[in-house]
């Protein structure tokens, strides 16, 4: 279809195909096979690549999600590799342009997917350790990929402690799954909200207040904290206070991203590209760059 383009730029030559090569920027067209409302702001999308191809990711990685005509955004993969067959899941918060339009999409609609990208958590090196996972808010989305992976080979790990903080009870993600975790018996799960409502009878306070309630073995624990900058900064202080060394603490750095492949420059944290060398970093690594914390 020929329509007049909306821009007053002209290219010097007619674009032509460069045969035999695919662009790293070209998304794969995937289909939404399920949409689930999580909270007022978040929905979880189950997505199927063409032919049910496996995404092949590790926990902590993300994909670039495209809505042609609107744009592309990085979104963490929330399903664990152990449970990713022909589909995978993304939990997306309505935060602006692209995510706003994604929220209007329904089952059967197509979207673009690139990835997975980034460095995930080196889960092999966590084997045999006690795991302390402390997500805040939407941080539970990427954390869940790791948690489910651990649950699926539960015997390979020591304790599994989850400390989850949300702003209000209505913002708690995956309540049904959390109930399951609570009843399993092999997960120590504590939750808190900053601002309770009338029905809430659990813990109240910021996430760091949960640390008073747990004892950990500082020599054998790996901690993972994912959330907004203000939150992981304080959690880190708690963890160090509990005797963990900086290389036992993992965190995730979310920056503006436009390419996902370490070129566009937006996600740089000092000289590091968080889309490539991150988003998962240990605190020890992060200490080396001023812009990280």
């Amino acid at each position: 279809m020929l329509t007049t383009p909306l821009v007053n730029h002209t290219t010097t030559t007619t674009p032509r195909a460069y045969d035999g090569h695919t662009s790293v920027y070209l998304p794969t067209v995937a289909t939404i096979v399920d949409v689930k409302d999580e909270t007022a702001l978040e929905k979880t999308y189950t997505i199927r690549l063409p032919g049910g191809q496996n995404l092949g990711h590790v926990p902590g990685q993300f994909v670039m999600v495209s809505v042609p005509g609107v744009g592309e955004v990085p979104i963490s993969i929330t399903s664990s590799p152990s449970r990713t067959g022909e589909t995978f899941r993304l939990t997306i918060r309505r935060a602006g342009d692209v995510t706003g339009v994604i929220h209007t999409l329904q089952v059967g609609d197509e979207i673009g997917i690139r990835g997975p990208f980034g460095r995930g958590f080196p889960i092999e090196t966590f084997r045999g350790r006690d795991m302390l996972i402390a997500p805040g808010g939407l941080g539970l989305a990427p954390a869940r990929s790791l948690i489910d992976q651990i649950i699926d080979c539960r015997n390979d790990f020591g304790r599994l402690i989850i400390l989850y903080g949300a702003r209000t009870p209505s913002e708690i993600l995956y309540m049904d799954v959390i109930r399951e975790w609570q009843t399993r018996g092999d997960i120590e799960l504590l939750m808190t909200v900053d601002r309770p409502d009338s029905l809430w009878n659990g813990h109240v306070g910021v996430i760091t207040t949960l640390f008073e309630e747990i004892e950990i073995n500082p020599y054998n624990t790996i901690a993972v904290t994912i959330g907004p900058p203000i939150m992981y900064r304080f959690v880190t202080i708690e963890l160090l206070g509990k005797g963990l060394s900086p290389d036992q603490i993992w965190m995730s750095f979310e920056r503006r991203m436009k390419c996902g492949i370490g070129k566009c420059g937006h996600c740089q944290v000092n000289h590091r590209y968080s889309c490539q060398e991150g988003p998962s970093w240990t605190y020890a690594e992060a200490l080396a760059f001023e812009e990280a914390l």
Partner: protein
Amino acid sequence: MKPKVAFFDFTSCEGCQLTVVDALQTHLGLLDLVEIVQFREAMSERSEDFQIAFIEGSCTRESDEERLRKIREQAGVVVALGSCAHLGGVNTLKNRWSIDNVQTYVYGDKGKKLYESYPARPIAAVITVDAAIPGCPIDRFEFLRIVQLLLQGRKPRLPDYPLCVECKLLENGCINKQGRPCLGPITRAGCNAVCPSYGDGCEGCRGWAPEANFTYMREILRGHGLSDGQIDAEFTMFNHYQLQQMGEKTPVDASSLSNGSHKPAPKTKSKFAAPKEA
């Protein structure tokens, strides 16, 4: 159903509406997306049932306020079309004097009372405005882009960097480097640096860039040999109203404005307040 749009004009030259007519000529497909129900300059058909109102022109008399409010009540989305509506624009040049002074100058002692007028202002000073398409006149491509964003239900966004970005991408020789004034460094981009591309310095018709560094812009212009009065003349061609407004809270050349820090600046009187009548 196609959204219904209407065009209105207040004090202006109608050049922005003319640009809309141009945009319709080059992009007839726009008529497949929206239905134009009122456009006095171009058509006689008229309906008061519309969702999106484009308003051209500044508000320059009290009796226009009522008309503006009526439009606001009816429209789901109100868009300021062009510099006059968005900034007050060139109309605000008269605000440097009392209304009586300009009325007398133009209509004489006898005539001045015949015609109502008050200091010119952007329409946002009277009603809530949802989006603005800046420029004197507007850029037709930006107009089309913003219509698209509105239709997608997105919030229209304007570039929030200075004009120099577009100018450099076009590889223009810099006007300021040639010792002639250009307000590109403090003006919001989006017109594809059309004035510098045609050899003339930017006059700031799109309003200030969010981080406009007035202090150093003044320095640059002083470097060209401009007096403070001439610099004021450069700054005020379209933005007299804004500078006056800022003048109440911050002096125009307060360095605190320039560094992205938002600490409140000391209170001083605007340099741009109306001069006393002789």
